[in-house]
């Protein structure tokens, strides 16, 4: 039991004293010590590994296309953090997801195809968001991936809203919201958590603590090292762990999702991770202490960790891994070819997804206006 739970007063006490520390009736239930997931199998882990490898390769190719100016704007890579989204997806495939702008991996873990992601990065018609959103705004309704967002922290309240709707309709579904350590400093984040706890919404708030918000290391943006501690002040259940091992993420996120799904209220998770690349494609990331990146790549690369487990504990062979890698390569090449071949958006669709656009009355540079004036003017002149 953690501190927040211990502090929770009994229901009677809460009623007796309006000033007691926590009003949550009966105090917070502890998180389950085991999830509802079955033990992981060789095939399942191989599948998770493949998914991580696919995300990494898609992003490596995206980085290449970016340097060729085929992908433009801001592009934030998830390389190094893949185990978080992939592990979290196991128990939440049918749930709602939302993420920030570093979301290629989340979208793919949730089910978006490499093709749809790549075509979106290329700004093409077949992209997940039809070329309108780009790298930061991948949306995929079919897979309940409710988007990538560009204003830090601003999507956290939206996730609370999604959880609210899920509860309202009794769907038994959970909203998962991913954001960074930096985002845990936005007012929107705090307000959303307060609301979610107050209304006991089925939400899991996942802070991917990769130790940097752009060029600012954690210790210069926060007096607190563990972002999950924020939950204590809100009376919310929480958990914190390292997320480099996809198996561990799978299990611990599943516990949180089980808890929220059962109607116990939201959970805040801090998952420690590390990004291998700069903040975005334009950041050379010179602010890291010497050797830090190398150490994380060596000791905490999700792909390496799972690869070791597969070969050492599950007897996965070299030949199997080669076949897997070849499959990933083929899928990625196909995605790039698909993006290259996909047409750019149709200019005729410019206003298609804007309600009530107010165009110029003079028709300058666009179709003539749709209203007519002459009747009135004629009257006046006559």
């Amino acid at each position: 039991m953690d501190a927040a739970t211990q502090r929770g007063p009994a229901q009677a006490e809460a009623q007796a004293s309006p000033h007691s520390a926590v009003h949550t009736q009966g105090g917070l239930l502890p998180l389950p010590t085991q999830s509802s997931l079955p033990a992981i199998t060789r095939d399942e882990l191989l599948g998770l590994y493949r998914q991580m490898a696919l995300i990494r390769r898609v992003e490596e190719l995206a980085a290449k296309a970016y340097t060729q100016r085929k992908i433009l704007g801001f592009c934030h890579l998830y390389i190094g953090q893949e185990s978080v989204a992939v592990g979290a997806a196991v128990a939440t495939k049918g749930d709602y997801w939302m993420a920030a702008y570093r979301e290629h991996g989340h979208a793919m873990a949730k089910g978006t195809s490499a093709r749809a992601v790549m075509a979106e990065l290329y700004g093409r018609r077949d992209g997940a968001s039809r070329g309108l959103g780009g790298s930061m705004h991948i949306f995929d309704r079919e897979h309940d991936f409710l988007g990538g967002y560009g204003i830090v922290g601003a999507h956290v309240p939206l996730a609370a809203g999604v959880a609210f709707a899920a509860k309202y309709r009794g769907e038994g579904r959970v909203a998962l919201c991913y954001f960074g350590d930096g985002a845990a400093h936005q007012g929107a984040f705090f307000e959303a958590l307060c609301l979610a706890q107050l209304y006991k919404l089925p939400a899991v708030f996942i802070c991917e603590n990769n130790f940097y918000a752009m060029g600012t290391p954690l210790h210069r943006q926060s007096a607190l090292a563990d972002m999950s501690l924020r939950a204590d002040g809100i009376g919310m259940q929480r958990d914190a762990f390292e997320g480099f091992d996809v198996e561990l993420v799978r299990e611990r996120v599943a516990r949180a999702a089980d808890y929220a799904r059962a109607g116990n209220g939201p959970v805040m998770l801090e998952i420690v991770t590390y990004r291998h690349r700069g903040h975005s494609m334009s950041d050379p990331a010179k602010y890291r202490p010497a050797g830090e990146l190398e150490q994380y790549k060596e000791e905490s690369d999700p792909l390496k960790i799972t690869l070791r487990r597969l070969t050492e504990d599950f007897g996965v062979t070299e030949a199997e891994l080669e076949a897997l890698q070849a499959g990933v390569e083929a899928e990625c090449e196909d995605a790039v070819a698909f993006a290259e071949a996909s047409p750019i958006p149709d200019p005729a669709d410019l206003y298609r997804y804007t309600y009530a656009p107010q165009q110029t009355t003079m028709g300058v540079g666009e179709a003539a206006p749709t209203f007519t004036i002459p009747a009135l003017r004629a009257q006046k002149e006559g």
Partner: protein
Amino acid sequence: MATLQIREALRRAMVEEMRRDDRIFLMGEEVGHYNGAYKVSQGMLEEFGEQRVIDTPISENGFAGLGVGAAMVGLRPIIEFMTWNFSLVAYDQVINSAAKIYQMSGGQYSAPMVFRGPNGTAENLAAQHSTSVDSLYAHFPGLKVVTYCDAADAYGLLKAALRDDGPVCFLESELTYGMKGEVPDEEHIIPLGQAKVRRAGRDLSLITWGKQVFTCEAAAKQLEADGIDVEVVDLRSLRPLDHQTLFASVAKTRRAVVVHEGHLFAGVGAEIVARLQEALFDVLEAPVLRVTSRDVPQPYASNLEKLVNPDAARVVEAVRKSLGR
């Protein structure tokens, strides 16, 4: 004269003012150790130290409000928004606190401070990172809203903003930070509220500001080839507005097109058109037209983005429409 990039001109203004006035401090995301997201504040931490060049977490509403409080009791904060898009999460502090404090305290407190950062569209940054906030801030009494197109103006106007006794929203542009221009060696302050005629012309006045000045100058050049002689007026300050320069230009040319990056509907251009027709109804030869961003959130794809942003071709078309040729 020194040739400076715009980011250097802005930095020079801040550094000079911080040397002469120790009430001024710079606060924002990545302004210190990272030397600025766009390197505007490069080297300033080194010169002024962590007490005066202060990195913040991503808490715009918090540090904008902190700036207002510090200003109320005598400091002169520079609050940098990494971009003005992110000022929207601090909008309440700028509007409800900074802009109103002087009036609602009966003149006892004010907020002498500068909110600054890049504004408007850059390239392929899609819907949430491409907002022009001009009209959002120009709407409110109590604020000044200032912008520039070149390095000399960037320097001289930011100096004036830093000496102003009220809150100033200073709108920069990501795309032109690297643009070079001549800046006088001696100290140079451009009073807020003075527009500048960038190019004199007979036939029509292009009224604009910020980087759209260059769009208008390009259009003017194209039109020149066809014997159409347009004047280009850079407003530089949206609030206060330099009515004198604006009206003098349009009274002379009798025609105007307003060009800006923000959206058309309820944009700053609408205000300018309203004022032109109030003051100059009898001299205008044609309706005043506007060329602005099209009325959609900014799309990511390049072909659509190009359609959305104002460009020289659209300005030329509007000028021809006004002139009937």
